[in-house]
Each structure stands twice: as C-alpha cells, then as structure tokens.
C-alpha cells in the first residue's frame, strides 16, 4: 500500500509540472521541454558548485585541511536542502489537503506519514546530488579516492538528507504554526522572499571574495567547525581518513534527530492532520457605504487580487523591486558613477541611450499581465455574467500593469536624469523610453494570456510560475531588451548615432503598441467572449 501512496505522490509532483489545460494529457513536446528545463537548471547548479569546489580542493589540500572540503560540502548540502524543502515540507506535512480523504480509507496512518516523508526525502536527494555530485567528481579527479573513502562518502550521501529532513520538519512545524496565526502572511512571505533574493544576489556577486577569505582563514574556520559543528567535523574525518569511529559518531548525530522527529510525528499525526487553522474572527461593523464608478471598482479588484499573494507579486513584478533597488544604488553611488562617466568618453556620449536601455532591461522583468486572465481561474464566471464590456475588463488589467510599473520607472528615470545632469529633452527621452517598453510588455503579456489561458491551476503560484503565456512573455520581453542594444552594437553603430537609433526604436515601439492595442480591442475582445 505504501508503494501505491508514494507512486501517487511522486506522480502528483511531476504531473503538476507537465499537466495541460482542460485536463488533456501532457504532450511529448511539453514533457521534453520540461526535461530540458530541469536538465538546464541541473547543469547550471552543478557548474556553479563544481567551480566552487574546484577552487577549494587544491588550496585546502596544501593546508592539509582536506577534511574541510567535505565539511564545506556537507554545510552547503544542509543549507541548500533546507531552503529548497522547508516550504514543501510545510505544505506536504502540515497543510496537506488530502489527509481526510486518505484517513477515511483503509490505510495505516504510518503509511500516509511515510509516503509524505518519502517525497520530501526524494527532493532532498536531488538537491544533494547537485552539490555532492560535483564535489565528489572534483575530488576524485584532482585528489583521487580509495574504495573505503567512496563507501563512506556514499553512506554520508544517503544519511545526510535524513538529518535535513528532521530539521525541516521541525522548522516547518514552527512556520506552519506562525503562519496560521498571522493575518497578513503575504507581506511576511514577500519580505522573506526579497530578503532571500538579496542574499542570493549578494552571495553570487561576492562568491570569489568569500572563497579567498575561506582559503586565507582556513585554519580558524576548521577550528570553528571542529569545536562548534562536531558532527560535521566527524563526517568529514570519516570520509577523508575512513575513520569508522567518526562515522559512527556522525551517524548517531544524524539519525537520532530523524528517529526522534519521526516518532513525534507518528504520535501526533492524527491531531496534526485534523486540526483547523486558528484565526481571529473579524466582526462586521456597519459603516456608510460609497458608490464607485465601475472602472474604478474593477481596478480596485485587480489591485486587491494582485497584492493578495506574495508569489504572484514577486513573479510578476520583479522588475519593480530591481528598479527601486537600482534607484537607491544610483543615489548611493552617484559620485562614483559621475566619475566613471567622465572617464569613459563612449559612456559620456551615449549616457542617454544607456540609461534608456537600463530602464528597458529592468522593465523586461515585469510580466504582470501575462497571468491576469489565467488568475481569474474558476471565478471567471463572475465578470462574464456581470454587465461589463469585455474591453473594460481588459483595459483594467492593462491599467494594473501600468500603475504598478510606471511610478518605479519614473523614480529611476528622474533620479538618473538629476544625477547625470541631463537637459530637459534628454530627461524626457530617459523617462519616455522605459515606459513605452512597459506598455509594450503589458500589451504583449495580455495578448499571450488571451491566446493561451490556463484556468485549471492547482494554486496561483503554479499559474504565475509555470504557465506558457508567462514563459513566452518573459522570453520575448527579455529577448527584446537584449536585441535592442545588440542590434545597434553589431549592425547599426557604424551607420547612425545611438541617439538616432533610440528615436527609431521609440517610434517602432509606439507603432507596435498601437497595433497590439488594436489587436486587444478586436481579436482580444472576441477571444475573451469565448473563454
């Protein structure tokens, strides 16, 4: 029975990625595309970690700290698996929607619990493979490994995710309890996600410096691990020296929390599976009501929907966050940037087109409209049965995109114009160009979503992350932002100045925008009626 449960869970995990709209089975092309994308991500991560371990292996060996190589690998595995699975653990263990259905069937509670644990464990092994895989290959090629070392490495590979699982189960329990008591959970998720991205970008930018610091301070770091993280120390010694005593200490430290957490979960599974989230009831107090114009009301509805889900905001409007961060950076590094511009004649001459392109590039990350039709989901009947013109519905979706993105664009453009001391005409160009591109993406995203809407999503995050219109809009907008400067640099730089090129691009953009809006008013309205 447990095999069937695990099979269903794993099928659910992968089926979600390739499922088509209208319950049609996934096409071979879509499966191939998903495999390609997963493969691409795996290659990128393996490459990233491979490069990191490659730069560590020799210096650590010269310092006779080979064990630190494996200790760092284990620490990265634990952090990566933890970050990758803590929210899935919360969802699978504490917020699963099928607990009551499964518990009504002739299944043992233990089997239900184990099937959930297995899915998380399976994901953790995949995450671990992305780090431990390149770490093993690099060490094997550069330093060589004995059979004993390989066996201990495999034992560590198999047991380390069990420790991570215990940790994620415990933390996810805390997260689930906190989230159940918090009213504005989307704000917390938004802040945490932005924080995570900031740490990620900071880490990626400064990784070389950190490797250098790591190598320079190898001995003190080794000492800290030896004293503070002794299970990691024993794990590393076990691999490096094939030390059975250290292996046993590590295994006890890794497996004890796992056994304890599993025992605790099995004891509390029924209570956990049947408890309802506690939320404070808000009692309605009658207040005088106000009548709004229909368009205003539609727009308020769009804004409330968009801001109700942190994941929808982050996926649709990453460019807004980047624009605001960019504006802050412009202010902080104003004098440095002014010096750079003076030092580089090409940049000085073309500062206006460069600023325009910066705005366009960051703006290409805003793809709000690409999922707004799909996000109506099974509530589409509401706006379809109400006396609202289809074009008004589509216009408010466009308007949402524009009122979200244009203020951030304006802040960036105005700050850039002031810092670079541009005249009024140049400032207008820096202000108008990114906003023309914003209009272009808004129209493109809406057309894409009208073309390929997907209403049968499991949750809104899946809708904004994995649907085809979102992918297409993202690729086309980023591609356009890339092609505009490349076309000039490779082909047109000898023929015309960057200024003239920018004016031409803007005229073309206006024409495309007019045509796209015409398409929305004609084909788009007809298409919406058939949804």
């Amino acid at each position, binding site marked *: 029975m447990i095999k069937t449960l695990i099979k269903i869970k794993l099928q659910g995990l992968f089926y979600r990625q390739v499922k088509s709209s209208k319950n049609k089975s996934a096409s071979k092309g879509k499966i191939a595309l998903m495999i390609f994308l997963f493969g691409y991500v795996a290659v990128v991560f393996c490459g990233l970690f491979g490069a990191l371990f490659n730069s560590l292996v020799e210096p650590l060996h010269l310092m006779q700290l080979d064990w630190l190589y494996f200790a760092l690998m284990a620490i990265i595995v634990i952090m990566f698996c933890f970050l990758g699975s803590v929210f899935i653990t919360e969802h699978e263990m504490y917020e699963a929607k099928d607990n009551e259905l499964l518990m009504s069937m002739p299944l043992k509670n233990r089997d239900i619990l184990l099937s959930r644990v297995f899915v998380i464990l399976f994901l953790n092994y995949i995450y671990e493979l992305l780090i431990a895989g390149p770490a093993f290959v690099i060490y094997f090629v550069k330093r060589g490994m004995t059979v004993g070392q390989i066996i201990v490495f495999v034992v560590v590979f198999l047991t380390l995710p069990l420790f991570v699982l215990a940790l994620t189960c415990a933390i996810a329990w805390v997260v689930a309890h906190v989230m159940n008591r918090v009213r504005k959970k989307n704000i917390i998720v938004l802040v945490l996600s932005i924080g995570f991205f900031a740490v990620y970008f900071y880490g990626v930018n400064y990784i070389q410096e950190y490797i250098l610091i790591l190598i320079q301070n190898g001995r003190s770091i080794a000492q800290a691990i030896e004293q503070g993280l002794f299970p990691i120390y024993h794990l590393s010694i076990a691999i490096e020296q094939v030390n059975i005593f250290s292996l046993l200490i590590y295994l006890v430290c890794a497996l004890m929390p796992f056994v304890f957490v599993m025992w605790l979960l099995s004891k509390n599974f029924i209570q956990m599976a049947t408890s309802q989230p506690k*939320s404070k*009831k*808000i*009692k*309605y*107090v*009658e207040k*005088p*009501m*106000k*009548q*709004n*114009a*229909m368009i*205003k*009301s*539609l727009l*308020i*509805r769009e804004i*409330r*929907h968009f801001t*109700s*889900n942190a994941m929808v905001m982050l996926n649709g409007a990453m460019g807004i966050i980047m624009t605001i961060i960019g504006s802050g950076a412009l202010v902080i590094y104003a004098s440095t940037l002014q010096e750079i511009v003076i030092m580089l004649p090409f940049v000085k001459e073309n500062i206006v087109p460069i600023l325009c392109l910066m705005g366009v590039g960051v703006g290409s990350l805003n793809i709000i409209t690409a999922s707004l039709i799909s996000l109506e*989901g*099974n*509530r589409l*009947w*509401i706006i*379809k*049965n*109400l*006396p*609202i*013109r289809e074009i008004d519905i589509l216009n408010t979706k466009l308007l949402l995109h524009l009122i979200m993105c244009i203020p951030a664009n304006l802040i960036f453009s105005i700050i850039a114009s002031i810092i670079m001391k541009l005249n009024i005409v140049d400032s207008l160009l820096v202000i108008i160009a990114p906003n023309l591109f914003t209009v272009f993406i808004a129209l493109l995203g809406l057309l894409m979503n009208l073309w390929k809407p997907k209403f049968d999503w499991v949750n809104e995050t899946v809708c904004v992350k994995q649907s085809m219109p979102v992918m297409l809009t993202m690729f086309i907008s980023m591609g356009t932002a890339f092609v505009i400067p490349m076309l000039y640099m490779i082909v047109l730089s000898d023929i015309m100045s960057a200024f003239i090129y920018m004016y031409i691009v803007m005229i073309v953009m206006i024409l495309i925008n007019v045509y796209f809006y015409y398409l929305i008013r004609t084909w788009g309205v007809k298409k919406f*009626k*058939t949804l």
Partner: protein
Amino acid sequence: MLRIEHLTKKYDDFKAVDDLSLHIEQGQIYGFIGHNGAGKTTTLKSIAGILPFDEGDIYIDGKSIKDNPLECKKAMAYIPDNPDLYEYLSGVQYLNFIADVYQVSAKDRQERIKKYADLLDLTDDLAQPISAYSHGMKQKLAVISAFIHDPKLIIMDEPFVGLDPKASHLLKQIMKDVCDQGGAIFFSTHVLEVAEKLCDRIAIIKQGKLVISGRTQDVTQNESLEDVFLELEDTHD
C-alpha cells in the same frame, strides 16, 4: 421575461443543448430538471451570457442576449452551482464590487445588504475574508449578491446545495417574494420534492433536448414528479 428560441450549444461535435425552446413569464418560478450532463448548466450559463452558443437566441425582457448583452445582464442575476468567489476579498468588499458594477446607489445597497444578510444570518461574517467562509456561507453571499440590484430575472443553478435547512427555507421564501413582485426565476435542481412544491412550471431536459415542459400539475398529472421523471428517463433511453 425569458424567451429561449431554438437554443443549440455544441462542444466540438457534441451537442450539449439541442434546439431548446422555453418561455418564462413574469411571476413564474420555473424548475429545470435533468440528469447529470443533460445540459442544464450549459443552458443556464448561456442565458447568463457566460457561454456563447451556436444557434438560436435568448431574449430577456424582449432583448436579445446576442445583440444587447449588457442590457440583458443588467436585468438579471446568476447564481452558479459552485460559488467560487473572490477569496481575496471580504464578504462586504465583494458585495460592494457587485453593487458598483450594477451602479446601485449607496443607500440602496446598504439597505439590501442589511436586509438579506440579516435574513440569511451572514451579517456578522461580512468583514471576514471569503477564503474563511464555508461552502454554505459562500452560497449565501452569492445569493445576497444576486439580489443586490433588484433583478427582474434570476437564474439559479442548484441553489439549495450547501445551504442549511433554515437558509433553504428562507431562500424559497425570497424566491416566492421576488415572483410576487413581478420577477421571474429559472432554476435547476435535483431535489424533485422541492421543484414539485415550489415551481409553477417545470421543464425536463435529457441529452440536451427538452422532453417535457409546462405547468407543474400538467407535467405530474396526479403522479409524483419523481415517478414522472423516472418514467421519462426510461421511455427516452
């Protein structure tokens, strides 16, 4: 009030509704009965302007839904079988949104929301997010939103599913009141006892085709509606 003329709706090659014609006058409660997949919901969604149809036409208060969709929609309200509402809004925000679309004045919406929310025992929960509502509470909210603009015609798909006995009783009373004031109601149901007691007229649909329609007593002819329905199901198999 509602005139359906030769309505045909296809999904690819499958005819979900086949040449269906029905007339519903002011003051009538019209029951629409049929097995699962008979074409009831498709018919109701076509009337509500949610689904486009292939042939025929639907007239609401003399206006074609094809030619004047906005005018027709202003005169009616639709309550679906599964009230999937905007979970990111609170109950009162949802009602205000619907009232804004129908341009209901502040005074009228305040009065109507109070009247129906008090009646259906939902007033205290109106500030709660809809995501915290039970199925029955969502159904009650959908009912209140349907009455907020005082429609002449109400289209309901299985309106009693999920409602507690008291709310069901109240809804039946509201339906009668609407019809007494010159409105009309067209609703589908699987609860034949309710249809028999509540409806002035009944229509039975099978595989997209209208099998029988008319005054309830003419359709049942001293038999129970359940017996008539089962006989018709067997006869047409």
